[in-house]
């Protein structure tokens, strides 16, 4: 059998594809929504980044300027299904970084603002947010796994799930 020859969709449990499409759409919504307020209010988002007390001062503004656009671009790519391997990897790295930062600050008892979906929100951070982010991370990793191991149509030009 030639492995370059694409497998038929019917060879695969359809749920594998359904879950991948759902994960892709959910995560694209999450990332596009999360980017909007931060793009509009970079100064407020910089305050939130500063509040995490993790990055050195030189990197805070750069992060506040670039990160929201990265979220937006990743969200758009997920939505359109273009460049899926790179986008899936990107959101997984970001989710790991977000969870790490939240966990570290909750563990050391810091009083900080999430800045997750709104640059200016003043609600505190609870362990529920980490749980929520772990679910997002699971979806992201599923997309990575799907592209790397499950998607048997990978070499077909039409496969962009």
């Amino acid at each position, binding site marked *: 059998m030639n*492995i370059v020859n694409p497998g038929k969709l019917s060879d695969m449990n359809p749920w594998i594809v359904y879950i991948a499409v759902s994960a892709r759409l959910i995560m694209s919504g999450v990332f596009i929504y999360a980017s909007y307020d931060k*793009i509009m209010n*970079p*100064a407020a988002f*910089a*305050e939130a980044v*500063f*509040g995490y*007390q993790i990055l050195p*001062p*030189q990197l*805070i*503004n*750069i992060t*506040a*300027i*670039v*990160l*929201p*656009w*990265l979220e*937006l*671009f*990743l969200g758009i*790519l997920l939505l359109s299904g273009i*460049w899926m*391997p*790179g*986008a*899936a*990897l*990107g959101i997984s*790295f970001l989710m790991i970084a977000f969870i790490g930062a939240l966990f570290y600050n909750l563990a050391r008892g*810091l*009083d*900080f603002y999430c800045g997750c979906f709104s640059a200016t929100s*003043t609600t505190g951070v609870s362990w529920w947010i980490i749980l929520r982010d772990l679910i997002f991370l699971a979806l992201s990793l599923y997309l990575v796994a799907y*592209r*790397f191991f499950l998607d048997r149509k*990978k070499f077909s030009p039409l496969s962009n799930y």
Partner: protein
Amino acid sequence: MKNFFYYSCKKSFFQLTCIVLAASVAGMISNYSRTAKLPLIGDWTLEARLKSESDKQKPISLAEAKKLYESGSGAVFIDARSLDDYNKGHIKGARSLPWLQAEQLVMDVINTISNDTPVITYCDGEACKLSKELALFLENLGFTNVRVLVNGWSVWKEAGLPVEKDMKK
């Protein structure tokens, strides 16, 4: 299959690099075209953070705050944290004015103090903004001598200065 995995990895890292670069360019362009540009490297020192919005406002050092406290000058300490945090422990004699309810509660807290009384606001944590916001708010109400004790609760407690608990329901 090995080949296939290798190409997937290579492809995804290449794509990711391009995405990050594109986001950097977009971020820079959007920041550059904004009226209120964010400097690429910000000044996040204590002085800069407290001075940015009002030139009048000055941070107060712990030593200075202690002197005011002990001199009996009538300086008023105001706790900007939540009532919960206040009840768990606060600077002895401090009044509670949680920033989130400042507008409703402010009159009860300030009606006995004159405009030129030294007022020192504090909250907790280097990055806590509550005390700064509260100080600006009080300045706008006409107080002329408002100072911020940065990371106030922590530094006060660590210095072994007088504290108390549960004064308000």
